[in-house]
């Protein structure tokens, strides 16, 4: 650690290094010092040893601008808005200095034909080299008419654009897992990018509704630094952001273990940060780093503000995590919000009652001595 700090200081004073300091960063008021600080915090998000920070700084400076196209299908633009909240680096830094964002409907200046041309040009000129970011699910119903852009179906666009990309990043739960449009009864036959365009070489899912801006930028920085994509879990989510349960990093965990729960909104426990488990918190079944990096420049996160986690980064969370204010999902075939324990107790009681009755009848028929007696015959027949 100490060694590294001195190395950083050496870098700061070395004249040659100062020269390669990107002009754009200085203009934006990003000092070399704050830049190195950014690299250190990035290294922390990516769970890399702090020693890597210096190397990180070096490779970002040298990195060539990668090309990115951002497609929106059945989305709500929440992930785009989230991206606009990125703070390390900011979206201005990303777009002006780091990455060439050649297509993004929500921010691009061109429209209509000119916009479509920009996309077509990128797909052609950078084939196999650009990154495709996708927001929103892709409908398979109605011959693709549930989502069309410039007259083309989302499915067609996704196949053309993702199929020719070096890598595809599915940003948000809709793109990663189908998300809201795919919630039961999935009226449009919405599917995740990975299912719409099977066999993609490199597909990274960055779910959450929306994905946290800092995870989006961390992924891009990871790629630009390490020249490779991060290790993924079984749902293709980067381990640096989805490797641990919310519950295992939650600041309310001490109250969970102690047995201290919020019972009513605004009660003493709620006002004193007790655990939200009994209000339906899905932290115990959700993987994401919300409690660690939090949201909006580290300001807060859902559980931090007093509401249970709804499990927004998990596959099918709209069906598996609902009802949100109960900790178990609906039981198939039962009314919404039916309590498993009520059903279970009912079942047990029913079995008990059935066999109590059985016992009474059995005793009665033995006492009375009638009832079919096929025992012997049955056996003879064998």
């Amino acid at each position, binding site marked *: 650690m100490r060694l590294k700090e001195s190395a950083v200081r050496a870098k700061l004073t070395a004249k040659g290094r100062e020269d390669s300091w990107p002009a754009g960063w200085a203009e934006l008021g990003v000092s070399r010092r704050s830049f190195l600080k950014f690299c250190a915090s990035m290294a922390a998000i990516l769970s890399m040893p702090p020693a890597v920070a210096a190397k990180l700084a070096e490779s970002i400076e040298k990195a060539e601008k990668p090309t990115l196209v951002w497609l929106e299908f059945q989305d709500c633009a929440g992930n785009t808005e989230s991206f606009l909240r990125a703070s390390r680096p900011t979206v201005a830094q990303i777009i002006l200095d780091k990455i060439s964002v050649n297509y993004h409907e929500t921010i691009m200046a061109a429209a209509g034909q000119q916009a479509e041309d920009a996309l077509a040009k990128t797909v052609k000129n950078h084939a196999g080299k650009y990154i495709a970011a996708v927001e929103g699910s892709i409908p398979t119903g109605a011959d693709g008419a549930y989502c069309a852009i410039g007259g083309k179906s989302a499915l067609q666009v996704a196949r053309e654009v993702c199929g020719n990309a070096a890598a595809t990043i599915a940003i948000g739960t809709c793109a990663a897992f189908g998300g809201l449009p795919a919630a039961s009864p999935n009226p449009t036959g919405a599917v995740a990018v990975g299912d719409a365009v099977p066999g993609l070489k490199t597909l990274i899912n960055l779910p959450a509704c929306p994905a946290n801006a800092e995870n989006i930028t961390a992924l891009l920085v990871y790629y630009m630094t390490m020249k490779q994509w991060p290790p993924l879990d*079984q749902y293709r989510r980067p381990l640096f952001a989805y490797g*641990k349960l919310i519950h295992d990093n939650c600041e309310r965990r001490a109250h969970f*273990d102690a047995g201290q729960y919020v019972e009513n909104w605004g009660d003493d426990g709620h006002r004193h940060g007790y655990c939200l488990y009994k209000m339906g918190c899905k932290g115990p079944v959700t993987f994401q780093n919300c409690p660690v990096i939090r949201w909006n420049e580290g300001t807060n996160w859902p559980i931090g503000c007093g509401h249970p986690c709804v499990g927004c980064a998990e596959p099918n969370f709209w069906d598996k995590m609902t009802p949100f204010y109960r*900790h178990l999902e609906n039981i198939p075939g039962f009314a919404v919000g039916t309590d*498993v324990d009520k059903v279970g107790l009912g079942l047990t009681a029913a079995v008990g009652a059935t*066999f109590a009755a059985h016992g009474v009848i059995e005793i009665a028929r033995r006492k009375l001595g009638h009832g079919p007696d096929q*025992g012997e015959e*049955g056996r003879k027949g064998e």
Partner: protein
Amino acid sequence: MSAALAASLPGSKRIRVYVWELPVRIAHWLIFFSIMVLAATGFYIGHPFISVSGMARDHFVMGTVKVVHFYAAIVFTLAVLSRLWWMLMGNRYARWSQFIPVSAARWRDLRETAKFYVFARRDPPPTVGHSALAGAFYAVIYGICLVMIGTGLAMYSPMAPLGSPMRWFSFLIPIFGGLPTARLIHHIGMWLLLAFMVHHVYSAILYSAVQRTGTVESMVSGNKFVEPEALAEEGDD
């Protein structure tokens, strides 16, 4: 135990048969007691009905309950697995063929036992080990036990210590449709086992009463007292 042996015991109408070997009995009672503990602790995990006040550091209610659940889970898992192993190694009454009715005779026995339960015959067909119906039920129960273990391990895998081999069981998570569904299945499984237990205890007592082979005691001593002809018939299949 064979028909020959039964015939060699003259004068006594009922003969003592060593049906449940020690591993079967130990496994059975370990399963029973661990399920009691698992259900009590599991119910609390699902519905933490005890709330404590004061500083969090002074309490560890849920923490303790979970620890007890996990220790009981170890006992339970080992007992179930050893019982499954014994299905391959044990005596004829412990074998897997007692649980899955494959022979025509077992199917017949299953039907006849079912008739007894619906009062369509006076006495159950005589059996030494499990009746075919009971055996089939136990197969389902062992299946549920495996599901409990599988869903339990799936839920445990992400909270297992780093480097623990238990982490490897996260491969089970998608198999059960994700963690939330694994949890629901796990919870439903508890009630299925409890409901089974009610029926099961009743049937054990019922059999003790109508067959007089000492069914209930047999799970303690290992011995049943059966009529020679029952034994003779067993020899047929």
